[in-house]
């Protein structure tokens, strides 16, 4: 070793040791160790002078050179407490950390005494320009006024070192607060929401915290949350050219690695989503006491590997493993995994996504999902969202300048708390690129209001906002076709989610032609084509959906062969063909989709279930009911296993299964299934949603089929009320028809006429005249008119109905014959008995041409014939049809029909002079009804003649 090296060893040893000591002790050390060598003493003292400045100096040098900066800024403040900083008198030291030292201080001005916390920063500003920037940015931060944010009051630069005076918060750090009190889930989330709201306020003001962690979140004695150090991390950033500049490169090196998002580690741009990541970590600590990584990282490199490569673990797993907490001195009791699993876990995961664009766009979105969770509403974290689309757009078009104006207008319209003047001020400071991105973030916030599938009262506003936004986009972005296309696509997508498929299709078509012109990448075109296809499907134009979906499929097959993307497009196209009733075209597409989905290693999931669902309805349309039922059950089982019951498809499956049970006359199962459908639909779409109304209609309709008349009225009325709100004419007509039928059975014939006529108009409008549904409705109107004492009007209606049915289905069809029977009854009412008798006999003889012997449907016409004869005192003749009808009825399949038939048959026996047989029939019926419904049931009163037909 050279002499110089040996001497340097002594020097550096002394410098290192002395630097850690207070001044007088350092002096003593130097004297003791180098007392015999004045040259050595001098050298050590000189270097100690440099040691003070060295870190800051090397830090700024590293940044100028682009080297990695030393991560942990050592304390450059000695242990001594300065007497004063700027106009403040220092009282005591509150703490120290990477950024510098915090002191408790008092303003040295007798006119207003104020206790503040002063943060004296370890960093250097690097000259006059740096100081000016520091002052400018400080002023912007000083405008943050929110009860949840500790205010920045003042600041300055003293000897080249900046300091900040902040509102002094008497409280304790969030993690310690929770560790000591161990509150339950709701209380913890309540604290978390307060944090989110404060951060969200800042986000709306275009300020990102960048260093959120429990130490920067204090809770005061009354439980109020206060955020400290807002935006300070940014202030410290000497390379940032100005306030709104998006950060890139080494200057974004996080101050607190454990809470840093991936983009902070890799030096990617920082945005509001960066704070969302930190909030995700906070949520994790609040609920499980741990960082979301497999083990507690023992080094920076390990931590970065967790963050960049492994990603965050689910909350429930963290809670179960119970590994070492963040702060061993203040361990937070993890909440039980069962509370965290599912929605909350999904929310945390969404906040902790590696890719910023896949996270919540801002703290407010995160807060909204937490609130949804607390209110037990479906959370957005669990579905693919608009944010994903627009987020991608934002990243790609950060440079687009022209977009700003259009977006700003839309953004500001929705974000109420946003202050225009402030924005204008910031705007002048901002560079265009960052501005576009942030304002677009706001747009996303605003547009998200309109995203939920559930119909919210603000829908009206939302779609008006959209229309306005899209007009502006069309008008003002003509020379930015790429941006325009991207925005129109987002807007189209939202229209689609609002159920406004016509506007969606129009908007998406414009976007598509622009994307073609600008030669957008094929996969983007495919995305758009698929959305357009979806819009047309929702418009009820499946044939128009085929072409775009076909093209999308070709693109996907070329770009992403044999992937689940291809499978998803196959499913869509198969659905389109199936809805267009081209089952042969649909089948191979759906089969291929299923094979592709099942070739993945993952178990069956909702995408597999969606294909099964389609295949089932295909079998259903081909009258392979057993096959359909089997597939529906398979699909339903997948939804239940994966817990994804809150989906459109599951609701639809329940509807179909209910219909099958009803067709098999398993009334109780049908009703139970429809009840589940109603529950799921209410949870998923809201109690006033069309899906909930559909379930109600199906419940009422089943009650009608089962003869449970009392269950029809209120349920059908409720369904109708909801449907009228939404304006789907077909659904409205269905409920009106059912309700009309209910009133008929209750003898309220005028109401029945009005409802039946309205139903008929609705069906005729949607389906046209030549449709069985329309003619069936006309038959009901005819019946209502007849019972309301207007047989002439009834005759015209029933004849029209019968003629159409005969033309479509032929004379022997059951519906044609039903209409013929109704026509016969009208003749009978008009006193044209001969015609009536001829028509009924003819019908009764011809039903067996279509229906097998003993089919329950035969009971109806036979009973009409029996009634006709009984009313004309031809009871003996009535014995034959009624004796044939009675065995076809049963109290379980339709109590009303059974009881009426029993009463008529008994009457016929009496008319035939056989009261014993009449009594035998009555007592048999009383016994069977009593076994099921109890002896006090209305059916028995009716049977015994104590109730009229209209009351039962």
């Amino acid at each position: 070793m050279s002499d110089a090296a040996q001497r340097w060893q002594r020097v550096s040893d002394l410098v290192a040791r002395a630097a850690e000591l207070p001044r007088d002790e350092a002096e003593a050390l130097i004297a003791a160790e180098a007392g015999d060598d004045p040259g050595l003493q001098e050298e050590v003292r000189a270097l100690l002078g440099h040691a003070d400045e060295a870190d800051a100096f090397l830090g700024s040098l590293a940044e100028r050179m682009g080297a990695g900066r030393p991560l942990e800024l050592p304390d450059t403040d000695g242990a001594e407490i300065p007497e004063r900083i700027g106009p403040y008198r220092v009282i005591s030291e509150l703490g120290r950390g990477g950024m510098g030292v915090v002191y408790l201080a008092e303003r040295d001005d007798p006119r207003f005494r104020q206790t503040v916390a002063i943060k004296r920063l370890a960093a250097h500003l690097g000259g006059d320009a740096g100081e000016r920037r520091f002052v400018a940015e400080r002023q912007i931060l000083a405008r943050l006024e929110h009860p949840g944010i500790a205010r920045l009051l003042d600041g300055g630069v003293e000897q080249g070192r900046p300091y900040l005076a902040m509102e002094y918060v008497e409280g304790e750090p969030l993690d310690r607060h929770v560790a000591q009190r161990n509150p339950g889930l709701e209380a913890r989330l309540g604290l978390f929401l307060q944090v989110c709201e404060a951060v969200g306020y800042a986000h709306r003001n275009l300020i990102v915290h960048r260093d959120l962690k429990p130490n920067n979140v204090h809770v005061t004695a009354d439980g109020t949350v206060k955020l400290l150090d807002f935006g300070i991390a940014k202030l410290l950033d000497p390379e940032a050219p100005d306030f709104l500049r998006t950060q890139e490169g080494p200057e974004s090196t996080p101050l607190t690695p454990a809470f840093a998002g991936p983009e902070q580690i890799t030096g990617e741009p920082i945005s509001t989503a960066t704070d969302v990541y930190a909030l995700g970590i906070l949520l994790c600590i609040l609920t499980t006491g741990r960082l979301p990584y497999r083990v507690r990282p023992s080094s920076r490199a390990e931590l970065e590997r967790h963050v960049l490569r492994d990603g965050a673990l689910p909350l429930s797993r963290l809670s179960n493993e119970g590994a070492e907490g963040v702060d061993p001195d203040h361990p937070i009791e993890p909440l039980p995994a069962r509370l965290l699993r599912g929605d909350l876990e999904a929310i945390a995961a969404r906040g902790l996504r590696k890719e910023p664009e896949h996270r919540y766009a801002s703290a407010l979105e995160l807060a909204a999902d937490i609130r949804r969770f607390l209110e037990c509403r479906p959370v957005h974290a669990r579905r693919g969202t608009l944010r994903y689309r627009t987020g991608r757009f934002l990243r790609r078009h950060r440079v687009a300048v022209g977009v700003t104006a259009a977006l700003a207008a839309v953004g500001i319209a929705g974000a109420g708390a946003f202050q225009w003047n402030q924005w204008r001020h910031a705007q002048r400071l901002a560079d265009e690129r960052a501005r576009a991105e942030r304002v677009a973030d706001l747009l996303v916030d605003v547009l998200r209001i309109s995203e939920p599938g559930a119909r919210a009262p603000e829908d009206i506003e939302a779609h008006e906002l959209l229309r306005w936004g899209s007009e502006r986009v069309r008008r003002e972005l003509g020379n930015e076709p790429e941006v325009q296309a991207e925005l129109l696509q987002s807007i189209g997508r939202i229209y689609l989610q609002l159920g406004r498929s016509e506007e969606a299709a129009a908007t998406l078509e414009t976007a598509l032609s622009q994307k073609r012109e600008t030669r957008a990448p094929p996969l983007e075109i495919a995305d758009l084509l698929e959305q357009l296809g979806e819009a047309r499907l929702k418009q009820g134009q499946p044939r128009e959906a085929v072409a775009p979906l076909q093209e999308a499929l070709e693109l996907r097959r070329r770009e992403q062969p044999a992937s689940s993307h291809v499978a998803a497009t196959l499913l869509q196209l198969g659905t389109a063909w199936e809805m267009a009733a081209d089952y042969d075209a649909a089948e191979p597409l759906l089969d291929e989709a299923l094979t592709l989905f099942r070739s993945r290693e993952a178990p069956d999931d909702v995408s597999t279930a969606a294909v099964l669902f389609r295949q089932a309805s295909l079998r259903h349309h081909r009258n392979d009911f057993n096959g359909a039922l089997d597939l529906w059950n398979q699909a339903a089982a997948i939804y239940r296993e994966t817990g994804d019951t809150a989906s459109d498809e599951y609701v639809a499956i329940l509807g179909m299964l209910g219909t099958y049970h009803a067709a098999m006359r398993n009334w109780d199962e049908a009703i139970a299934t429809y009840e589940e459908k109603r529950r799921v639909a209410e949870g998923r779409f809201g109690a006033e949603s069309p899906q909930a109304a559909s379930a109600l209609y199906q419940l009422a309709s089943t009650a009608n089929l089962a003869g449970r008349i009392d269950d029809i009225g209120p349920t059908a009325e409720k369904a109708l009320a909801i449907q009228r709100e939404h304006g789907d004419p077909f659904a409205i007509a269905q409920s009106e028809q059912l309700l009309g039928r209910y009133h008929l059975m209750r003898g309220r014939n005028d109401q029945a006429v009005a409802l039946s006529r309205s139903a008929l108009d609705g069906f005729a409008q949607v389906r046209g005249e030549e449709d069985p549904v329309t003619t069936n409705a006309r038959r009901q109107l005819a019946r209502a008119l007849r019972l309301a004492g207007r047989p002439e009007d009834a005759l015209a209606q029933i004849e029209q109905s019968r003629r159409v049915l005969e033309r479509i289905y032929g004379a022997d069809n059951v519906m044609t014959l039903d209409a013929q029977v109704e026509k016969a009854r009208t003749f009978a009412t008009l006193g044209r008995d001969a015609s009536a008798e001829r028509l009924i006999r003819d019908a009764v003889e011809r039903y067996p041409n279509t229906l097998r012997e003993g089919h329950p449907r035969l009971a109806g016409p036979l009973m009409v014939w029996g009634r006709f004869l009984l009313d004309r005192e031809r009871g003996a003749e009535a014995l034959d049809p009624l004796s044939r009808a009675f065995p076809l009825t049963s109290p379980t399949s339709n109590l009303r029909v059974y009881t009426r038939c029993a009463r008529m048959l008994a009457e016929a026996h009496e008319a035939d002079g056989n009261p014993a047989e009449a009594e035998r029939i009555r007592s048999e019926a009383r016994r069977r009804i009593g076994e099921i419904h109890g002896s006090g049931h209305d059916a028995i009163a009716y049977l015994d003649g104590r109730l009229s037909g209209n009351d039962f």
Partner: protein
Amino acid sequence: MSESGEVTRLLETIRSGDRRQLDRLFDVVYGELRRLARSNRRRWQGNRTLNTTALIHEVYLKLASPERLDWQSRAHFFGTAARAMRQVLINYAERARAAKRGSGEEDLPLEEEDAPFSGSTEDALALHEALGKLEQLSERQCRVVECRFFAGMDVAETAEALDVSAVTVKRDWRAASAWLHRELSAPLPPPGR
């Protein structure tokens, strides 16, 4: 053998005591860092400086098979990468200076010309020179500065990379940074604390 396999193997050999392989490791890592720095220039466009920490991490993820390496091998890798990074930056700075002076007989290849380094060339070269002197006084301190300065490693990571204690790293850093400050800042500021 693929580069990735080679780096992993080299690290394993180094870990088992064969320090001679360090030079070979340096060559591989240096080559990859240079290549990446060039190809990544678009990524850092609009940004004045090169994010060396991110670069080194990227090289690590590309070259080593992380699951096969224990922590100490990783630390060795980062230690070597820190030195390589220093060399990359210095080379860019030298070329930039040569280009500015117009002294070079040879035309710079285009790819070198728009290399990402656009930091202060004089700073970089002065630091390089000073580090050269420091290396004569204490090689270990020079390594500590490389790890912390060029690779952004913290004290614990540096200690692992160099097989020394954390206390040693802290003291070396304190002394070396004070010394560098004195070397690089002239004239001297008023002495005393």
